[in-house]
């Protein structure tokens, strides 16, 4: 299978790479990968390239592309909010992948701000059948604070300086990515709405967001009974960093996504790379 480069979109302003398995059936979902922060479509450390190629090998049509004004994509020239732009850009991406691979339903995958974009579109677009949120919305909970502070309160050495220096260093660093959070109640209601509409959701969070998320239990602390819904899958990769800089961590993440897709959106018989 060979990837194809496209300039597409309502103003032909978007650039993306489609991976099109030779015999993907119409029923197979298309997978669209969204920008993580300002990193162009290949993803942090080429994560999105590895991801889409592995999914192509499983028979899924994929598209990794740059949203308006990110990477190689230009502005559309329209007067729109960023929310409207993202929804319209992803709609353009679904149209392209639908034309190229005949798929009608889509799974969105996004890391950090990409997760935020995926959330935004999944709230409103009926063509979205599922979403993978990587380090998406999360909130500090009572459990988070207990897990964070109790060990530190009991650690005399930290009180003597290590902790304060570490905090000072953290404060002076330049954040590579940040997600401006929606209120917790809004996100909970959004997720509930997605589940009511039949979407399947995969939430995978990493140890790289330990500033506000530090245990698998926190999924439930943040989102309540929603996480017990049969169409919700959660996983906490404590050892990994936010952008999966180590090849072994990337591999484990990609295996997990492949497994979740295979269980929830199996490739229709006859489709292969």
């Amino acid at each position, binding site marked *: 299978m060979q*990837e194809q480069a496209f300039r597409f979109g309502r*103003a032909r302003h978007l650039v993306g790479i489609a991976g099109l398995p030779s015999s993907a059936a119409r029923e197979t979902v298309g997978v669209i990968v969204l920008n993580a922060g300002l990193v*162009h479509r*290949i993803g942090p450390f080429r994560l999105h*390239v590895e991801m889409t190629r592995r999914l192509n090998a499983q028979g899924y049509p994929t598209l990794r592309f740059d949203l308006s004004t990110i990477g*190689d994509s230009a*502005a559309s020239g329209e007067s729109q909010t960023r929310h409207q732009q993202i929804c319209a850009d992803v709609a353009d991406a679904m149209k392209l992948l639908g034309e190229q691979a005949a798929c009608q339903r889509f799974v969105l995958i996004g890391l950090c701000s990409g997760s935020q974009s995926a959330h935004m579109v999944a709230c409103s677009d009926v063509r979205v059948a599922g979403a993978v949120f990587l380090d998406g919305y999360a909130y500090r909970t009572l459990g988070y604070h207990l897990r964070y502070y109790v060990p530190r309160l009991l650690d005399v050495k930290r009180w003597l300086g290590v902790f304060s220096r570490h905090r000072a260093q953290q404060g002076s660093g330049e954040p590579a*990515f940040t997600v401006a959070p929606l209120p917790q109640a809004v996100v909970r209601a959004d997720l509930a709405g997605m589940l009511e509409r039949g979407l399947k959701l995969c939430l995978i969070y990493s140890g*790289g967001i330990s500033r506000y998320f530090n245990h698998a239990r926190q999924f439930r602390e943040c989102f309540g009974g929603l996480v017990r819904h049969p169409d919700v899958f959660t996983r906490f990769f404590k050892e990994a960093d936010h952008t999966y800089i*180590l090849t072994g961590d990337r591999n484990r993440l990609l295996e997990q996504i492949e497994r979740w897709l295979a269980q929830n959106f199996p490739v229709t018989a006859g489709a292969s790379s």
Partner: protein
Amino acid sequence: MSARGEAELPFYFGPERALFGLFHAAGTPARKAVLLCPPLGQDQIRCHRLYRQLAQALVADGVAVLRFDYYGTGDSAGDSAEVDWERCLADAATAAAELRARSGIDQVFAFGARLGASIALASASAAQARFAGVLAWDPVLDGRAYVEQLDALQLALRIDRARFMQPRKETDVAAQWLGFAISDSLRQQIAGLHFKRPAAPTLLLESLPPDRPRAWNGFVVDAATIRSLQPPTPWDDPRRLEVAILSHPLIQAVTQHVREVA
């Protein structure tokens, strides 16, 4: 959308259409052509936006530009672990030929940052890419020192508390440089890099931080071929590993030089 966006064409080219390229056509018949050779590894991601800005600045001057990814990098075919130095040189020559064909201009200049500059210098000869000139931004001229530096950064990553909740094992970080798998052969190829004299007229754009060792002395022919840029570029600052490299002075220096050369 602007006509500029429409003039930027993404495509695959080369043997088995394995290489990704993005051709920036000049609005008017092009008078010159520049191939932008990307660096390798995380530097490539950090420089992506700057390369695009540089391409657009050159196009505004009537210069045709091709950006591309080597095999095993960016959107090109191949895994990161398959990146090979000799293949990079061959890919640069293939890309130069593609730029000649698309622009109709035979005289092609090359720009590169860090290892991208080293690739442009190493492939500049008549037998390979036939570059009319090279603009080399902080090129890696001493491969052994560069390998030692990347190894040290990779080792430090293992215990980076701003990144990991707990220190990682040495095996977790082995055979990688800052996010990318590397083969033993690439390590040896880069360690063996050593440049003496440039094979094409070269402008060396220098912006290393003051505390970084320079290896220009044995390489440049005269001081006029060096231009210093400010501020220094934080290539090797681990705290900025995922922060884009941007430099308006660099874009000005490159566009001015290309404008002035015959």
